[in-house]
């Protein structure tokens, strides 16, 4: 009983704190792996997709748990099982497809090994390192505003219309560099100007303030790779890349 109370307390603390959520998940990795193993009928390793799915299902259980709905661990176990079953059904649809990782000959080589790889691995690694560097820099700047990528993901627009409204504001800022400079200088989001210039509703921008902030920071100097990834956003409706 006392143990259950402790878990519930930790779950509620973890709901709004990613670090505490990670700590809780780390402590319950044996439980998570055990539930995943029961589902797939064999020992689940860290390399299995089901392991990753079980981990995220446990995280979802933390976010979705309510005290009045019973004990946490049975709820988490149910959530893990449901998620893995969903994944297995999805995978079953692709059973007829050939996997590049299947062994194709007697020498134990997979199909992937026999295919010529046109990519330059050194170039790939260099690009990934550069991207990593950009993301770290962006993360550091965002930290100055008190925002993390997890916060941004929590406030990211879900509906297409909202995404478009925010996109209009971002494009307007990309075309008016003075706004971006003002943002960096004052550390304040110029919501009124963004709303007036882009035609987006101020209330919509306020509701997704952290998202808009992250996207505007990306438009400032130094994040070419990330901006390259977001070409669809910036090129939409006559917008231009910064």
């Amino acid at each position, binding site marked *: 009983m006392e143990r259950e109370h402790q878990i519930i307390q930790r779950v509620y603390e973890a709901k709004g704190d990613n670090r505490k959520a990670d700590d809780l998940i*780390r402590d319950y990795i044996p439980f998570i792996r055990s539930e995943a193993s029961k589902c797939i009928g064999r020992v689940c390793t860290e390399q299995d997709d089901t392991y*990753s799915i079980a981990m*995220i299902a446990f995280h979802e259980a933390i976010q979705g748990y309510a005290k*009045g709905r019973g004990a946490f661990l049975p709820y988490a176990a149910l959530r893990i099982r449901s998620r893995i079953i969903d994944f297995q059904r999805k995978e079953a649809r692709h059973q007829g497809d050939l996997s590049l990782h299947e062994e194709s000959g007697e020498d134990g080589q997979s199909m992937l090994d026999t295919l010529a790889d046109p990519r330059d691995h050194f170039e790939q690694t260099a690009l*990934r390192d550069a991207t*990593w560097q950009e*993301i770290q820099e962006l*993360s550091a700047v965002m930290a100055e505003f008190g925002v993390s990528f*997890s916060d941004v993901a929590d406030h990211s627009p879900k509906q297409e219309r909202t995404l478009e409204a925010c996109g209009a504001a971002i494009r307007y800022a990309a075309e008016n560099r003075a706004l971006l400079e003002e943002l960096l200088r004052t550390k304040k989001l110029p919501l009124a100007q963004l709303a007036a210039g882009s035609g987006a509703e101020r209330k919509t921008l306020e509701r997704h303030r952290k998202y808009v902030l992250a996207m505007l920071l990306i438009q400032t100097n130094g994040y070419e790779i990330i901006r390259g990834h977001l070409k669809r956003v910036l090129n939409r409706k006559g917008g231009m890349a910064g």
Partner: protein
Amino acid sequence: MKYLVMECHLSYAVVLDEEGRFLKAANRQYRVGQTVTEIIEMEAPPPAKNGKRWIYSLTALAACLMVMVTAVFQVAQAPFASVYMSINPEVRIDVNRRDVVVGLEGVNSDGQDLTQGYDFRKKDLDLVMDELVDRAIDMGYLYDGGQISLTLGADDQEWVVTHSETLSAHLSQHLSGKLSATILVNGQTAQSTQVVIPVEPGESDYGMSDYGQAPPVTRPSEEGEDSDYEDREEGDDRPYGDSGYQEDGQTDYGEPEDSGYDEDDFDSDYEKD
């Protein structure tokens, strides 16, 4: 769709898609800066039910209670019986089951005059009648030697019967010392009631009229011995043919030609064509 991995946690990773959405997805051994093409997105937790479901139950209970109270109130306010009081002003007084007046209406113009400005609410029938009679006296409608006619109407006959006596007595008591008035009470029930009163011939004055004395009404059973009908004993199998009618078709009324009418009598002013 390509996703750029932005942040990695133990249980999830934050990825950025090409349309600018930041998403939380299962961390399948991702590394920051990596680009992936397929993710398992984190599902939004169902909206937390905040343990205040009892509020809904309480609201439903309160609504039920209000409906019940309203129903009881409506039953209490529903007219159960009506008293038509006619002096010259005629008014209709509606009462509920507890004889509390729930409606008052002037039936004719004097009645409307009498009830104008009078507050009957939450008053008993007796009090309302007393006060209306007093107003009628003050307004000159009821005077010494006048008449008050009460007509009671209700589905419940018992109510009519009991109130016929009590209302009359109450009004008489109320008027004593003020003036003398005749109080007539008529009862009306919604169900038509047929009262059968057996009438003995000797005791009745039926037949005594300006047209002279009617012949006495006799019952067949009492004068059986003088009847033209023969007594039939048990086991008497004789046919009923002996009733006086002859088998040959002749009757005691004589031949048809002896009826007194001659064919010549049919002569009329109208001639046959």
